[in-house]
């Protein structure tokens, strides 16, 4: 989706403003949004790709006017409704107006550390051998899906080189839609600044890109 979240190469946002001794959370409500998203994520039944896609569904103007945890709050409210855990009326009022959905038991405090640090993996069994190897030249496809994708606009239709083969990974473009993990080979692909931006420098940008985004160059 060509949304406001796809920021690479955009201009006019001003300088980066690092904050010395920055706290982990600035407002208590941000702390609560983080905790809610992390806790409900254990029972909600959605994937991280669906979560990202939900945050990207904000209107572009609102996305740019609001910060990270407000994006999360929007995404969480959207997912709760989509997955039938709460109705918009319940979210607006904070009052129970519909039966509770049957979901796994809520994570307890004693289970938190294991949930947070326990093993997880996005690697899946490949259905076919990798099409590319390090050193291969590839061109990214010029695609503009209206749904979630992890191929940013600035890297579409560009020629780069495979630098790492990461393995066969869950494919966000389908997983975000709830249509399955559809795993594909994932590569680190390196582009020169000249190719991406027309700039005369030896600097590079590397992106992690799935095989369906790529064709031989």
């Amino acid at each position: 989706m060509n949304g406001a979240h796809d920021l690479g190469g955009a201009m006019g946002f001003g300088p980066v403003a690092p904050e010395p001794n920055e706290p982990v959370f600035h407002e208590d409500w941000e702390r609560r949004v983080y905790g809610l998203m992390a806790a409900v994520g254990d029972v909600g039944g959605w994937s991280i790709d669906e979560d990202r896609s939900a945050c990207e569904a904000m209107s572009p103007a609102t996305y740019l006017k609001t910060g990270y945890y407000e994006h999360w709050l929007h995404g969480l409210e959207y997912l709760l409704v989509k997955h039938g855990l709460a109705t918009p009326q319940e979210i607006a009022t904070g009052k129970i107006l519909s039966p509770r959905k049957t979901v796994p038991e809520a994570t307890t405090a004693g289970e938190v550390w294991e949930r947070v640090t326990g093993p997880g993996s996005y690697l899946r069994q490949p259905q076919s051998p990798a099409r590319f190897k390090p050193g291969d030249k590839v061109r990214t496809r010029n695609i503009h899906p209206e749904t979630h994708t992890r191929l940013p606009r600035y890297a579409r239709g560009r020629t780069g080189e495979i630098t790492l083969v990461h393995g066969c990974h869950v494919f966000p473009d389908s997983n975000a839609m709830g249509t399955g993990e559809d795993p594909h080979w994932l590569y680190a692909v390196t582009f020169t600044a000249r190719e991406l931006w027309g700039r005369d420098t030896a600097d590079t940008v590397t992106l992690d890109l799935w095989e369906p985004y790529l064709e031989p160059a």
Partner: protein
Amino acid sequence: MAHDGHDHDHHHGSELSPIALRVKALESLLIEKGYVDPAAMDALIETYETKIGPRNGARVVAKAWTDPAYRKWLFEDATAAIASLGYTGRQGEHMVALENTPDTHNMVVCTLCSCYPWPVLGLPPVWYKSPPYRSRAVIDPRGVLKEFGVELPATTQVKVWDSTAEIRYLVIPMRPAETRDWSEEKLAEIVTRDSMIGTGLVQVPA
């Protein structure tokens, strides 16, 4: 809307903002519906406020600086080498370590959201999640570095890594020459979060 919660906490002199009220309502709904255990929520918050943060990454870097076998392992299989120090889990499932040298400076961004290696660096700072960094790190990395007080020689190649998948990158900064006889523990103290994102260099405090 802004006055909906006018009477809430008024007597405490700390009126909640509209968004704080919205979150408060959502929290009570989700707890009442039984989807969230409030004690678990507090434990999740506390984990990232007090237990998981950039000190973890600093220990990885200090070990890579002092233990050649570990350094080799880290660049071959960062996920396993980092897990051996106990740093595993969410947003760090697949790790890659990037070596900064006099010839190459690596720097990490997530232009599409704010992907960040939580087990080694904790939750990301606001600037990392904000449009100025996300938009410019890929098109003007040297300009961004200058805003962090970092000016690299033209002969140093800048390699930017845009975290578009579930691979998380940890920059292993260069070790300052004057730390030759320092212990691993002392070294870990000078490794900054920014140096492990690639927006800072490690310096010995004056």
